[in-house]
């Protein structure tokens, strides 16, 4: 993962709606990159292009290049299923599988991929939950439904579920927008911990959050990448007038 993720000429559409225009940026490995911007600016679409989830929606289309470890995700013959195994994703709303226990949720990625060895699964689940800072809170209720946990715990359960398949990159689509400040703080702490091993891209509505957790930040507006750079510089000394207007709260 020395190369991080290199995005070149990325365009995306929903039907005839052009939602991303000529995006190009370099995401550093083992660091946190934040994507900010007003609603509908294409930031969610952008990270969904990084693990080929955009094309799951009917009529959605992508063009361009996304290089991960030098290999293009959109090269012909690349299996999106393999891409998604290496590039995990956490969504805005915690979405544990309602028919599964907490344990089964975390084990789902491995088990449904064919792993049956109970010891391996136990081990992977404990490791993922520990990694997601949830082990101590749920180790006695692993057989309870995942949906019986609190909102913040459910989101960390989803992070653990994504971690269990040992991805190299973690995409987070507004992971804290449905959480209270305490649960949010826990997730942010977790993000800072995870970046030691993973490349993280986080979409957030919350500019303070971007400032707190990320090394680099990209500002999206109307489907374009307006500015991309070191987080501190982008927030203290934006180069573009539109970025300045947005971060100072003049619109958005």
């Amino acid at each position, binding site marked *: 993962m020395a190369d991080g993720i290199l995005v070149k000429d990325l365009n995306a559409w929903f039907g005839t709606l052009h939602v991303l225009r000529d995006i190009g940026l370099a995401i550093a490995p083992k660091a946190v990159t934040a994507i900010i911007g007003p609603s509908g600016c294409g930031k969610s679409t952008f990270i969904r292009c990084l693990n080929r989830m955009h094309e*799951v929606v009917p009529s959605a289309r992508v063009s361009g290049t996304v290089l991960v470890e030098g290999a293009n995700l959109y090269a012909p013959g690349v299996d999106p299923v393999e891409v998604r*195994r290496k590039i995990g994703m956490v969504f805005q*709303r915690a*979405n544990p*599988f309602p028919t599964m*226990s907490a344990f089964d949720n975390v084990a789902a990625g491995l088990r*449904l*991929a064919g792993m049956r060895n109970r010891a391996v699964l136990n081990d992977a689940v404990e490791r993922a939950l520990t990694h997601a800072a949830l082990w101590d809170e749920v180790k006695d209720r692993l057989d309870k439904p995942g*949906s019986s946990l609190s909102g913040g715990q459910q989101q960390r359960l989803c992070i653990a579920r994504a971690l269990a398949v040992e991805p190299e990159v973690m995409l987070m689509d507004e992971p804290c927008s449905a959480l209270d400040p305490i649960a949010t703080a826990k997730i942010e702490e977790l993000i800072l911990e995870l970046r030691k091993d993973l490349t993280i891209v986080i979409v957030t509505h919350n500019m303070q959050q971007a400032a707190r957790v990320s090394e680099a930040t990209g500002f999206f507006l109307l489907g374009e990448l307006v500015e991309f750079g070191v987080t501190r510089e982008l927030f203290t000394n934006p180069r573009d007038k539109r970025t300045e207007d947005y971060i100072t709260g003049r619109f958005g």
Partner: protein
Amino acid sequence: MSALTAGSALAVVLPLILLFGFLLHQGASAVNVDFFTRLPKPVGEAGGGMANAIVGSLILIALAGALGLPLGILGGVYLTESRDRRLPWLIRFVADVLNGVPSIVIGIFAYTVVVLPMRRFSALAGGVALAVIMLPIVLRTTEEMMRLVPASLREAALALGLPEWKVILRVVLPTARAGIITGVMVAIARVAGETAPLLFTAFGNRFWHQRLDQPIAALPLQIFAYAIAPYDDWHRQAWAGALVLIALVFLVSLAARIATRGRYSAVR
């Protein structure tokens, strides 16, 4: 207002309660061990039972289920998952029309495609007729229930790097399970009481059937035959048959609910 709604709710279940009470009143006296273990007696002899019809009905339902459920559920999955627009639209339309086709017509269809080529009435033909009745119900319920599963669950599973068929099989279908089972129960209850399509397919049988390609007895047929006969004894047995039929549907629903009860099912 709440009196009005409560009254309406009561009015809805009142027919069922009355029906059950009436059946109990008329039929309970003829329900005894013989009824479940004996074959029908010839006219004029007292006693006898409907053992063959009870077993026959169960076999017919099993046959219909074996044919109709896999097709209906897989078809429902197709209707939910297909990205094509025209073919699913057409299938939905045809299924809804099929749902409205009178069951006697479906009986004629089974007569034409199964009875005529085989040159005999048979349990198989009855099973095919009932399966055709079940199909649209199971198909549409499966589709509706799968649509109720939040897209976010599907996305979560896809984002774990699972192929689409596994996402459907291991995440979407289990989440929709309770709803699908309800649909299956409705379909079974519906066909368990069907009489018309069995008249010239399963045909009925006063004795035990030997093989599935022979005529077979069924409770609704037996009830029909006994109810239109001029003997008081048979009328009582017909009432008892109706009571047993309803109890059977009730028990099958209950058993299926218990047997397939998920630990945590989302859509109900």
